């Protein structure tokens, strides 16, 4: 059974999370990036830079919302974090470094999240540079649309605690 941390939202309600313990060796994880074939095209972009080694402990939402301690993968938990921690959707024109972006799938699944590093600007075709964790793989800085996740329905958020 995966290990779960005592992780709450700002309202004190528990947030379901898990630390991946599905395999015993990290060796294949480290080797697997070489097998990612088509995805490696993203790594050749000028803005792409790996920030950390591959790590199963946390995923993108664990990086964005969980302090890099654990993985958060249930859609309703991400929705609760946005609501209970008082994240507000913001227009692209007002985005600043430190705001977050959720990559919503057509199905309503929060397939990815990232933290804005360089806000969207007209000269960059309104595509920000972000940093994010790519599943079980690394953290990377990258153009927001140069990654394995669909940026088309992405929404920017800023936390606005009362």
């Amino acid at each position, binding site marked *: *059974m995966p290990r779960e941390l005592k992780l709450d939202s700002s309202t004190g309600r528990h947030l379901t999370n898990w630390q991946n313990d599905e395999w*015993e060796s990290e060796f294949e*994880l480290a080797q697997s990036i070489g*097998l990612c074939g088509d995805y490696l095209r993203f790594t050749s972009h000028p803005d792409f830079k790996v920030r950390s080694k591959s790590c199963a402990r946390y995923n993108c939402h664990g990086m964005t919302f969980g302090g890099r301690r654990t993985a958060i*993968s*249930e859609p309703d938990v991400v929705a609760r974090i946005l609501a209970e921690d008082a994240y507000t959707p913001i227009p692209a024109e007002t985005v600043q470094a430190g705001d977050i972006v959720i990559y919503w799938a057509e*199905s309503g699944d929060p397939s*990815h999240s990232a933290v804005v590093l360089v806000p969207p600007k007209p000269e960059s075709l309104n595509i920000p540079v972000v940093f994010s964790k790519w*599943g079980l793989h690394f953290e990377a800085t990258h153009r927001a649309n140069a990654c394995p996740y669909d940026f088309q329905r992405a929404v920017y958020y800023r936390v606005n605690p009362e």
Partner: protein
Amino acid sequence: MHVLMISNARSTIVSTQNSARLDAAKLLPEYMFANTPAYLFERMRALPPVRELGEKADSQELVQLIEQIDLGKKTPTSVALAYAYTTALSFRPQSEVTKALEGKKFESLAWFGALLALGFAASKNASPTIVTIDQGLPLPERVAAPPSPARNSVIIDLTRRE
């Protein structure tokens, strides 16, 4: 009165050799980059070999393959395969899957339950259904249902049956 039948004919050829058609190297990136079960499910389900496996192997065989991985020493590749087999179950009749899973618990595979639930939802959308509609509604002989904004959108064929 028009009667629509949503067609979902499936082959039930069973052969363990079908499993060998899955290329683990192609499955691994999908698993490694997945932050959520829904992302993994959609990516896996879109792979032709996973669909082919689901159409040719029966639920009993797929469950046995998952069980072998669940009980053995796991690697990222073997877990990716287990999730591909789980996704392949979404192409099987739900009653057959439920029967094959009787008494089984794959607790070491963290996303097994979520993928199974997504599969049941998808197969429910695609299972044979009789829909009664008003006579006056004009219908083409063969139309595709529009993509649903709801989770697990499935493109289905609507074929008029006289």
